[in-house]
């Protein structure tokens, strides 16, 4: 296994995967306990519109994509906060329209054509050093922010109304969290692709949710699980010459279903013991 990780591109891929695991473990736990997985998917797909806009206008990737995604995410966040029961429809519309806008804009862009596949599954094996530094910086900012506002984030996530009564600046904090989530998604998409972002944001936190006794433990556990999935996925992809992003997701998905089966088994055996 160690042989594969001698190469520099593999080391970079490993570093990118581990950093993505940290960011996604922390933000993904917030996403899962707040039940905003669909909103995250909406942000990730709307980001494609931003990629198209950046290419069409000749702007740098980050300016176009982040700007476009942040604007769309703020609108979606406002709707989820004000009219939760209508939010899923609007997110679905943004999701589809964002993708379509991106594709049309790239059609219209002269010359260069972005490969949709590299956007979906990323290119973890060709991550440049600069992207690693940016991801590293984002991880530090996110972990520091969440640690500082942990009590408020916990209260907001558990019982928004009560948090408001206790004087937590719920609206501001919620928008800030969604903005951070958008930055996370846009950055990590560039490195590991849209599908892997959603997988890392949801699968490790979901597995941990049942076993953790606090949000903090859930974040740490999800990060660790994400790292295990990333390392084993990369190893599998090297050993069997498979697409790396898809391998990581399949490992995570396998663990997800294994966990469901284990829980089901324990649940039924406990029930039988009680009966």
């Amino acid at each position, binding site marked *: 296994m160690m042989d594969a990780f001698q190469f520099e591109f593999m080391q970079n891929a490993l570093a990118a995967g581990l950093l993505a695991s940290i960011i996604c473990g922390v933000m993904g736990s917030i996403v899962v*306990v707040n039940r905003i997985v669909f909103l995250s998917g909406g942000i990730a797909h709307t980001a494609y519109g931003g990629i198209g806009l950046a290419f069409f206008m000749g702007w740098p990737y980050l300016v176009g994509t982040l700007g476009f995604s942040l604007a769309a995410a703020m609108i979606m966040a406002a709707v989820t906060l004000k009219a939760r029961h209508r939010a899923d429809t609007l997110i679905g519309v943004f999701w589809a329209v964002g993708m379509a806008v991106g594709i049309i804009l790239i059609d219209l862009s002269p010359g260069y054509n972005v490969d949709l596949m590299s956007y979906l599954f990323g290119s973890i094996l060709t991550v440049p050093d600069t992207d690693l530094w940016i991801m590293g910086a984002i991880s530090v900012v996110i972990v520091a922010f969440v640690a500082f506002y942990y009590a408020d984030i916990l209260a907001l996530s*558990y019982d928004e109304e009560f948090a408001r009564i*206790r004087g937590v600046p719920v609206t501001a904090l919620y928008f800030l969290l969604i903005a951070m989530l958008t930055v996370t998604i846009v950055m990590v998409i560039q490195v590991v692709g849209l599908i892997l972002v959603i997988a890392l944001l949801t699968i490790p936190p979901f597995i941990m*949710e049942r076993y953790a006794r606090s949000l903090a433990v859930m974040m740490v556990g999800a990060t660790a699980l994400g790292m295990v999935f990333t390392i084993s996925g990369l190893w599998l992809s090297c050993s069997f010459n498979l697409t790396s992003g898809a391998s990581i997701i399949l490992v995570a998905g396998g663990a997800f279903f294994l966990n469901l089966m284990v829980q089901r088994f324990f649940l039924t055996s406990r029930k039988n013991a009680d009966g």
Partner: protein
Amino acid sequence: MPENNVQSDAFPLVRIEDLDFSYSGRPVLQNINLSVHENDFIAMIGPNGGGKTTLLKLMLGLLKPERGTVTVLGDRPDRVSHQIGYVPQNVNINPSFPVTSLDVVLMGKLAPGQRWAKDKAQNRSDAVAALSRIGMADYIHARIGELSGGQRQRVFIARALVTRPKLLLLDEPTASIDSRGQADFYKLLRQLNAEVTIIVVSHDLPIITGYVKSVACVNQRLHYHPHAEITGAMMEDLYPCTVEAVCPVARVTHPAPNTPV
């Protein structure tokens, strides 16, 4: 309403004057007047959709009145809401959330501009004391989802009490407790009433009147029955009673002429 004059002249904890409120054009509360004084123990009864929960949320500053004023502890509700203990109606918020009873109670220690990390040990021992006081000492480190509805209710009450508020608002707190538990629960509230002013929204009409000091009927309008008017014995006679049988306000929405108060 003239009933307010019956109460003491001391400055009320809560004063609601000429309040109207509607949800997207549909009137929910009309011309509400109420003064809540120290050591009151008020049951708020009325049909579903009558505006009881809305009235609590107006007192907490979660909603803004369309007309009229709400003053709590002499200030605007949203400025002092952190001094009110609140037990919401739904105890089944996020049952799979990874959080222990203790951490839920600690949320009650949050206050504007003040992080609980400052006085961690003190807050922790306060939270443990609040849980012990309501008989939840054995469940301090239990995950909130592992508790029964009634136990979760107690955790929420501890969360409301941990800051020793002057005013405690409870929204249908016994909805997930069986009838034997209900009596115990109201006994607990009566003990707490020695130091806390309590308003409790409830449907447990026959039981609750044995414990509270006064009753407020809410159905778009509010009718306040001070102590003398509704006693436990009188309510027992009405068993099994409905809001309609007790209070003229309950008939406001029906075509029958409104009984003058």
